[in-house]
């Protein structure tokens, strides 16, 4: 359904985005399931295109893609929360912040497991195994500029590396602060 243009700047919204009922939570359960999945697809595509991950729900609901100025419709925060719940269930998002508040979430437009693989592949290809790298280097260093995970937010990165560690493919070292965290890849 969601067609995402790879040409940089503008995100091309799917046709359904201009359909007013798309912004109303459908009471019919079957309809709602379809609607929810369409939203999930749209969120992931949009966040991937703009390389976003953190979503404060209340603010996000007033902005694109949850608000369509052309047809004067926007999604209710409660509805958005329901959609995010579904994303969390599918493993494409996690709630952050206070446990029960559900005000903010991280959207994983690519799952941490996938990131972990990509990062490990990259490390192996560049013969960086058994070398200690800082997390800052990984995310913002000059070596990774062309990589997809360049500019990845820290929490997603850490989550990915933790997965690698649990697989025995890497070892993390605690520094004095979060930025000082180090990682050593094993082949």
């Amino acid at each position, binding site marked *: *359904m969601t067609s995402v243009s790879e040409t940089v700047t503008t995100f091309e919204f799917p046709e*359904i985005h201009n*359909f*007013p*009922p798309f*912004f*109303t939570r*459908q*009471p*019919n359960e*079957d*309809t709602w399931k*379809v*609607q929810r999945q*369409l939203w999930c697809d749209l969120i992931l595509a949009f966040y991937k295109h703009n390389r976003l991950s953190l979503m404060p729900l209340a603010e996000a609901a007033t902005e694109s893609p949850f608000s369509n100025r052309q047809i*004067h*419709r926007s999604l209710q925060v409660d509805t958005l929360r329901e959609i995010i719940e579904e994303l969390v269930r599918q493993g494409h998002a996690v709630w952050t912040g206070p446990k029960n508040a559900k005000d903010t979430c991280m959207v994983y437009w690519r799952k941490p497991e996938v990131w972990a693989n990509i990062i490990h592949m990259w490390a192996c290809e560049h013969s960086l195994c058994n070398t200690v790298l800082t997390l800052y280097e990984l995310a913002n260093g000059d070596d990774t500029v062309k990589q997809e995970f360049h500019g990845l937010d820290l929490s997603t990165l850490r989550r990915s590396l933790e997965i690698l560690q649990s697989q025995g493919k890497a070892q993390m070292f605690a520094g004095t602060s979060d930025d000082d965290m180090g990682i050593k890849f094993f082949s």
Partner: protein
Amino acid sequence: MEPVELAPTLRPLLESGEKIICIQNKVGLYRDSVRDEEHDNGTVYLTSSRIVYVDQQLPRERSVALHLSRVERWSLHSGFLYTSAKICLHIRAASSSNRIQASLSVAASPTSANWKCVICDYVNRGGGLGKCVLCGVRRQDDSPDLGIDKCRELNVLNDAEQQISCPTCTFDNHTSMERCEMCDGELRHLPPKQTDDVGGIVQHEQRMAVKLSFRAGGSSLFYAALKGALSSLLQDSGSLATVGDTQSAPVVEVWPHRERQTTAGGISTIVSAAHETGRARDVRLKSAFLDLDALTTMANEIVGMAEHIATQLNSPAASKLHKTGGGESDEDSAARVDAFRQYVLDLGIESPVTKDTAGAVFHEELARELCDYLENYVSQSGGTVALVDAYCLYNRAREFTLVYPSDFVQACGMFEKLGLGLRLREYPSGLLAIEDPGSASDALIASRIDSYVQSFGPLTANGLAAMDDCPLTLAEERLWLCERNGQLCRDESIEGVRFYSNIFVQANNNK
């Protein structure tokens, strides 16, 4: 007893002006004290001119009616232990079909019936002579006619046949005497002899008795209603007073004699004064209710007039007239005539079912009447009517005898149980509506709404109400129905709720 025509709802079809007075279920019939197995359980309707028995099992085949004018004598036997209460009706069996009608009309005509001489009060039998047998004065046109039964009641049939001759002293005693007035000897009561009808019309009538056995009670109510109906029928047919009721005693007016007030003082004066006030109050009340009665009679007349107009409007000549009427367009005038016809049709139910008349079967009867009344309206308004609307309409038609909402709902709930052509439907929101299952199926509504959405785009409840010509609540229910089956989806905004064709599901299905 004669067969009877029934309406589709299994209620008897009434003649014009006929009214249902009382209804009782679980009644069995006896013919000459033999239980009639074919008419053992049914509902009995007492109308102003007939008694109609509608059988429970085979209403179309076994239902019978008896014209009240054929009832000669009647009595009530109360039940005891296993015997249920019975009303016994002695019937004049007509050997030719219209005999009773004839006898009634003959009795009413001044030339042939019994009449009372205005000079000597002698009751002459038959109008053959034209003058009083006793005093020879010519009969005057305004001398009152008396039915034969009246004569019997007044004990004025001084025919030798009507007296009992004492077997001991041969004195002609009055029929009511048990013992001879002269010698106190015992009188032999012969079976009552058939009096000859003077007109010769009901000369050799056979008699039969029909008993109504009330197995579910209600006999005394029915009996009282029957008495009332019979006496009013007799009054209508020209006789002066009640006839032949074996139980009724002549009404004796006890108090209001002014002569008694001659003694001044004492308890009697106080008592009579109290009665005087009571009487004055009675008179005032009566006069007050006279006006109400007048109002009712007027209302009936108006309804009659309206019906007359309705039939005129329905006649082809009238419609032709309206079509050729110049000035306005045909459609315009036709619509106006239709509207007027509708008003007229809505005007009245001639004999509404009430709790008093129907008793235990009230809700069933109400359901049948409702069905009769509403069927037309429901089909005209697209197969569905909101219950509230139906209630208003129905009560308007009932004029004075309004029905309670709870009774109304209960009666509507019985439609399906009674196998009538309508049903009561409760929508998930709690809205109640009366539906014709044939013309208002969900599939039909869904396809109609689908075509609306296809051709007019998104739909609001208001829009649908206008297009379907139905109440807003009903339109909402229909849209929700389509939403539930996944045909529509909603868009809520500050402008209200709009319903769109559900492209979510359609797109999903196309995948």
